[in-house]
């Protein structure tokens, strides 16, 4: 047995938040992707299904990002400062995407008669949902590949380093594909009783599954050349989770293929978890390899223990509230009456 330091525990909590953001808000971005690519005679119904699934939960899902940002600058202020500089450009673009995605969704949802899916704001919703996960994916690539250099906490690498490489582009598309994949399986579950829509989203899930699989393998191949460090960490400490991800991928695809929505949804969530934690385990104890470690950039213990108290109290309120939200809107029951949002 080993004991974790308080900095490592906080890093673990932040990684959990990142996982929650990826699994929940990732699917909301994926929903936007399917809004943009809604097609066929049921395009309007596909868009309505996306809006119905996202409506009550997307703002809560989005807060995981805020929690991550504030948690990172409280617990690891030096890392936060370095990331803010090194990833200024991709984060700024993602931020613009987040603004447009959220605002356009609300404009459509609450001003339905005024701003339909065919208005410019409808298009903005889809495009912003594509742009945001892509650039967040490139930022992940910059961190994971070890391209951000900050010896002694001072950034020495450039503003384009790490997120403009071929690997970053592939990982950007991978993030997009996996978001679309998540969304498609969630939408399969939520439309189990609408066979035509279920079939539509099944086809989309298969496409996203194949795309994300091909992109993942491509990323691995590129990283062997471009960033051996990343491959080494995945096949080093991250190996067990990495192997699980490799085994789980085909299982998820099988479940989608055989139209088993609930298994598919669970398997895709597991896939995201395996990938994120393989990355985390692989680069442990670094937050931003190769210069910024968890212990080396952590806030003083007094700050970390105060954070524990706040997170514990906050969690006691948050978890039952989240449970209530998802029970009311996502429990196994007939699809929501779409008009419930329109008093």
């Amino acid at each position, binding site marked *: 047995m080993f004991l974790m330091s308080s900095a490592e525990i906080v890093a673990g909590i932040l990684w959990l938040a990142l996982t929650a953001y990826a699994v929940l808000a990732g699917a909301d971005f994926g929903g936007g992707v399917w809004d943009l690519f809604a097609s066929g005679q049921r395009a309007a119904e596909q868009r309505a299904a996306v809006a119905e699934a996202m409506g009550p939960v997307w703002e*809560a899902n989005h807060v995981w990002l*805020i929690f991550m940002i504030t948690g990172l600058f409280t617990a690891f*202020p030096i890392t936060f400062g370095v990331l803010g500089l090194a990833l200024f450009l991709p984060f700024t673009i993602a931020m613009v995407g987040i603004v447009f995605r959220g605002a356009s969704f*609300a404009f459509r949802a609450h001003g339905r008669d*005024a701003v339909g899916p065919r208005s410019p704001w409808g298009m903005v919703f889809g495009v912003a949902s594509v742009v945001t996960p892509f650039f967040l994916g490139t930022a992940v690539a910059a961190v994971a590949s070890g391209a951000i250099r900050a010896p002694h906490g001072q950034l020495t690498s450039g503003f384009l380093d790490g997120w403009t490489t071929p690997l970053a582009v592939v990982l950007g598309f991978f993030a997009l594909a996996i978001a679309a994949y998540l969304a498609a399986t969630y939408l399969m579950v939520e439309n189990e009783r609408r066979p035509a829509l279920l079939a539509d989203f099944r086809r989309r899930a298969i496409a996203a599954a194949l795309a994300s699989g091909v992109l993942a393998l491509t990323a691995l191949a590129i990283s062997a050349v471009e960033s051996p460090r990343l491959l080494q960490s995945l096949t080093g400490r991250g190996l067990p989770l990495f192997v699980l991800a490799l085994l789980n991928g085909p299982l998820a695809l099988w479940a989608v293929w055989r139209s088993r929505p609930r298994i598919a949804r669970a398997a895709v969530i597991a896939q995201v978890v395996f990938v994120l934690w393989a990355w985390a385990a692989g680069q442990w104890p670094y937050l931003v390899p190769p210069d910024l470690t968890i212990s080396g950039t952590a806030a003083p213990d*007094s700050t970390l223990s105060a954070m524990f108290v706040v997170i514990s109290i906050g969690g006691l309120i948050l978890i039952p509230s989240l449970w209530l939200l998802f029970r*009311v809107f996502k429990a196994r029951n007939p699809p929501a009456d779409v*008009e419930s949002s329109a008093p």
Partner: protein
Amino acid sequence: MDNATLARATMGTSLGFHIVFAVLGVGLPLLMSVAEGLALLRHDEAWMQLARRWSRAFGILFAVGAVSGTVLSFELGLLWPRFMAFSGAIFGLPFTAEGFAFFIEAIFLGLYLYGWNRLSPVKHWLTSIPIALSGAASSLFVVMANAWMNSPAGFRLGPDGLLLRVDPLAAALNPSTATEDPHMLVSAYVVTGFLVAAVYAAGLLRGRDDIFHRRGLAAGMAMAAVAIVLAGITGDSSARFIYGAQPAKFAAMEGLYQTQRGAPITLGGIPVDSQHRILYGIQIPKALSFLAAFDLNAEVQGLDSFPPDRRPNPVLVHLSFDGMVGLGTFIGLLAAAFWLGVFRRRSIPKRRLLLWGLVLAGPASVGAMEAGWFVTEFGRQPWIVYGIMRTSQAATSAPALGLTFAIFIAIYAALAITTGRLLLLLAARTRAGGRVVSNE
């Protein structure tokens, strides 16, 4: 422009935009909760309609507030990486707490907006309470962080500038928190109340004299009237605190150059650095000493007692301060006139002049709040952390700040125009479909 100026312009624009939506996120849930509570208690359909109409508008306003707030959390790191690397560990705790408050607000807002048909009426009303509470809590937590920038506490620095010891609770409950927090919270209700009242006053001016307009106006003015009195009281204690804690800011607020006993208050006027005095203002002898310390002969430090590189810009700070006080007094008098009319005539006053005044009071309340933030922020300059870190040292060295500034101006303009247009369309559609109920 250099990076520090561009970073300040971008951050200031983002804050100035976000705060309008943020205060509505604090105030509107309280109004919705009260209206729905009254509807249930009295089986009153009109109050229920009001709650539903407000919730519809709030769905849009909250989303714009949420995404513009996200921009701010990003911008802390993107625009001020050095400031955050230094301060994050000290003043991050209230932000962590704010994250949870925002979580609760977003979760229960989802339940509230989409739960009208899924929850029983009482349960639905209950979901409004955490929204109102966590909205208020968010504002308190965030302003704690700003208060820390004004009166940094809860840490000790070594000789090399490294952090030796951190007490995050002492940082959160720094000396400015006690005056800044209450003042911002009540200002949120001031702005919400006057903006809601302005909407219904405008409707009454157009001859829409129905139960919704009368009640909407009364509800907004009730919140506004209580809150504007509290804003005056908390603002006064805040100014008196600044007199002791941030004398340079205080001197700039008042446009006072020479340190003196029995200092006068100058209303309006333009401080002129080269002449060391304020021109064209109206002076009230000894009033400043009295207000600052309850002593007609108390000494007040002037700007001249600070070296030029430790002074805020007195033109901006003084005019913002007088703008805040002037607008606050104007809307306070309107609220008094409104409620006097109500008590005298036992009904909503409908004098056109008063209604026009109330329409203006909406934007005037926003102006007062923004001016108040100008005082806080411009008054703290040249420091980002008062007395510890200069704003010019804190900014990013990233490229293309001018471009991102321009992009964000365009984004905020697009969001503001679309939000405004949508709210007008929502109102128009509600009127078209709402006749049956209103003719009861």
